[in-house]
């Protein structure tokens, strides 16, 4: 799938082009914030006293527009949603942070972006609010460095196993998008009840006259237009999403993953020989500084890994929090490769419950997760076993990624791969060798101790 968007994915570096884009996007954002009247604290807070729901209307119209737009671009195959920056979900900090934010929003009158707009409009309270933000963050930094280092706070602020939790990239995300759009538009229909019930009292009403009964207003032309547009987009989105290709499952050879039954569900898997082909070809890709086509997560303990060796994996050893650590590693892998469509193979001693659950969960999140069919026993038998006979396509697949024109004999190739996998290799086969290196260099096992990582942003 060749996508053109995002033009310059976020990777933490900031070339000038990126900064210019950031400024342009910011300018458009600020322009429309002001158009919506968000440069006024009175307008912003009037939603909280239920009087004027403009803030809600604008925010959720914006959300729906961006959401439907992203889903449409993805359905057309123009945008790779996996390349978009996604924040980790931290349940309690985000819940508490959101509630606190609401409190500060009401008293202060702004959120940070709208305060900037109000400040340039010449409102003194916005400048004071911005000063408050900087002071608050300074206070937080001081706290974080002092009392916040206590374990109770750290485990609250950055709990182990926190991961990106999003429907982004899920095969059925489009359905969620249509559902949310419908829900939002439906909610707009009933805002008039609040707006009439809590409207500013007229002088007569202040003098004791009762409020008139709530009357449903007629839908204006613009309302009808927006609903019609949303419906049309929903149909387009549905049509394109249903017709869109499922994520390609990379196959070096012609073997398709066999399914393994778990609690009645089918979990896609890969056989040991195909996996060996992937790992070797990926080792070559990494040595040539191209991103790998797949990732392997090894859940076994040290003993089992020594008994049945395997190179080119990310090791997440068993123990407390293994599952969370695996998710965190995955988060890292997806951020670095930024491609959920790349297969992620989970290896365990047998088809353990952890491995099966992990694969099932990951697939629900839209990750192309696969199980190693037969666990490490199959690996021992087909890859490391001396008697095993390898099909030709493995060599072809592995050699196809090297610059060398020498295609080895099968027996030779099998020996080399076997000795590399068991870590006994000294000489690199010519067809795998990279000028200036003595040994198949990277994709050796990486052992992960704990999960975590990620930083404050936004």
């Amino acid at each position: 799938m060749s996508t053109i968007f995002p033009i310059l994915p976020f990777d933490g570096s900031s070339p000038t082009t990126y900064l210019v884009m950031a400024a342009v996007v910011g300018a458009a954002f600020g322009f429309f914030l002001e158009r919506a009247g968000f440069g006024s604290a009175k307008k912003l807070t009037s939603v909280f006293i239920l009087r004027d729901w403009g803030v809600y209307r604008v925010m959720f119209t914006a959300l729906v527009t961006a959401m439907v737009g992203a889903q449409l671009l993805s359905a057309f195959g123009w945008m790779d949603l996996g390349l978009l920056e996604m924040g980790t979900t931290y349940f309690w900090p985000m819940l508490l942070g959101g509630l606190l934010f609401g409190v500060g929003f009401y008293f202060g009158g702004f959120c940070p972006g709208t305060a900037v707009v109000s400040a340039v409009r010449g409102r003194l309270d916005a400048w004071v609010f911005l000063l408050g933000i900087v002071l608050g963050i300074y206070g937080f930094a001081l706290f974080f460095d002092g009392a916040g280092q206590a374990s109770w706070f750290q485990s609250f602020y950055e709990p182990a196993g926190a991961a990106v939790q999003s429907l982004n990239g899920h095969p059925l995300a489009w359905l969620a998008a249509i559902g949310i759009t419908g829900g939002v538009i439906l909610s707009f229909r009933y805002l008039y009840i609040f707006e009439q019930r809590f409207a500013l009292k007229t002088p007569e009403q202040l003098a004791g006259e009762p409020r008139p009964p709530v009357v449903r207003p007629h839908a204006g032309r613009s309302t009808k237009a927006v609903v019609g547009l949303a419906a049309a987009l929903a149909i387009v989105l549905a049509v394109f999403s249903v017709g869109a290709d499922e994520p390609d499952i990379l196959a070096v050879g012609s073997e398709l993953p066999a399914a393994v039954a778990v609690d009645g569900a089918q979990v896609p898997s890969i056989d040991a020989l195909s996996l060996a082909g992937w790992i070797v070809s990926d080792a070559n890709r990494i040595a040539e500084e191209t991103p790998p086509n797949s990732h392997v997560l090894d859940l076994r303990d040290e003993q089992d890994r020594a008994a049945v060796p395997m190179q080119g994996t990310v090791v997440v050893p068993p123990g407390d929090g293994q599952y969370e650590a695996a998710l965190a590693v995955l988060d890292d892998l997806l951020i670095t490769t930024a491609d959920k469509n790349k297969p992620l193979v989970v290896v365990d001693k047998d088809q353990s419950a952890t491995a099966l659950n992990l694969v099932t969960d990951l697939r629900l999140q839209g990750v192309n997760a696969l199980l190693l069919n037969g666990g490490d026993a199959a690996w021992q038998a087909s890859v490391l076993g001396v008697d095993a006979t390898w099909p030709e396509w493995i060599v072809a697949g592995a050699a196809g990624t090297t610059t060398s024109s020498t295609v080895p004999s099968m027996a030779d190739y099998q020996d080399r791969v076997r000795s590399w996998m068991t870590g006994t290799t000294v000489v690199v086969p010519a067809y795998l060798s990279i000028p200036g290196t003595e040994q198949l260099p990277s994709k050796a096992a990486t052992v992960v101790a704990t999960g975590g990582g990620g930083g404050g942003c936004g």
Partner: protein
Amino acid sequence: MSERALVKHPLQQRIVHWYNAASFLFLWLTGIAIISNSGYQIGPRFYIDTVNSLFGGATRLLHFHVYVGMLWFGVLVVSFLLDPHGLSLRFLRDLVPTRNDLMWFKVKPKAEIFDPSLPMPDQGAYNAGQKAFGAVVLIGSTVIGTTGLLMWFGTGGGSLGRSLVLIHLITVGLVIAFFFVHFAMAALMKEERPALMSMVTGNVDAEYVEHHHAEWYREHGDEGEPLRPAERFALPRKVLGSVKRLVLRVHHAKPQPLGSPYLAGIGLGLSVLAGFVLMGHGPGASGFFSRLGAFTVARVAPDQVASNAYWSSVLGTKLSEYWLTWTVLGIAVGGFVSALIAGRIKFGIDRGSLISRHSRLLFALSGGIVVGVATRLARGCTSHHLSEAALLSAGSWLFLAAVFIGGFGTAFAFKKVWR
């Protein structure tokens, strides 16, 4: 010649003129000796050697040139901008070109070459040629002084440094070319002698100006233009006055009513989508204020930030290379443009009808502090979470829901704040 003399150049104006002339002369003479070893050499070798030995070496010569140049430019800029006698504004006003000036340029060459009796168009305080020279000196001095300072205080080398030198020299050359005409007219031509004398004595003969500067004579024919107390500090007062008028005009502009919230929302959503499409990220804001705090504190106490567990990592990137800095700048510019178009730039404070201005500011400060802390816990503000909620992030939906719950709850308990 009549006996009546009109005031043309008050003493202060004459001082500036001769001060300028003397400084130019010194700077030209030393300047020509400085540009000896580069490709621009103008003066003959013996001259360069003489001047160099006179000042005691090339370095000291350069220092003389630079320090005298700074003195010349500094005094000129300060006195011009401060305008204590109102002469700067008078000078600027006298330089403004008129239709008669255009005609003067057409008639003058003919009169000089073919027919000296040709009638010249009426002129103001300065004729068109004098105006042209005045403008060249005014703009040229600014360019020469600015490039000189940049050459001295700037990093020097590189293509920028070399082009500064070139601009400096070309401008000097231009001013010198005009100076020769100016000098020839004033010092050598007999019929222009009253003009020269007006720069010496300050006064000019009434009959001469009636003929040569008819427009000026019509206006100032009884006594000329002596200093007037009412004109003191005229230039800064005029500038401040126009700024104030502009600001007040913007402030009192009639605000347009808000448009459809749905249209604004669609625009806002498309901006977020543009963020996804261009840079793989929607806009944010609070991260910038965190960095701003870190860099501000680091300016006063670098160790405090470097050893701070939360902030230590952010100092690696300069504030100017942090993408959110540019997003926030963009938000400010975009918001300002929209507010300007819609007449919504208003200086003041937004507050509920039941609280005083002081309480409002106190609320804004404390609300800001709470929001600052909240953004750190929640890893971003509403802008960031709005973007990620559009990407169906569970945490962002949680945050947005919590913001509304927190806001509704607080509003219910503290209705009076925004009543």
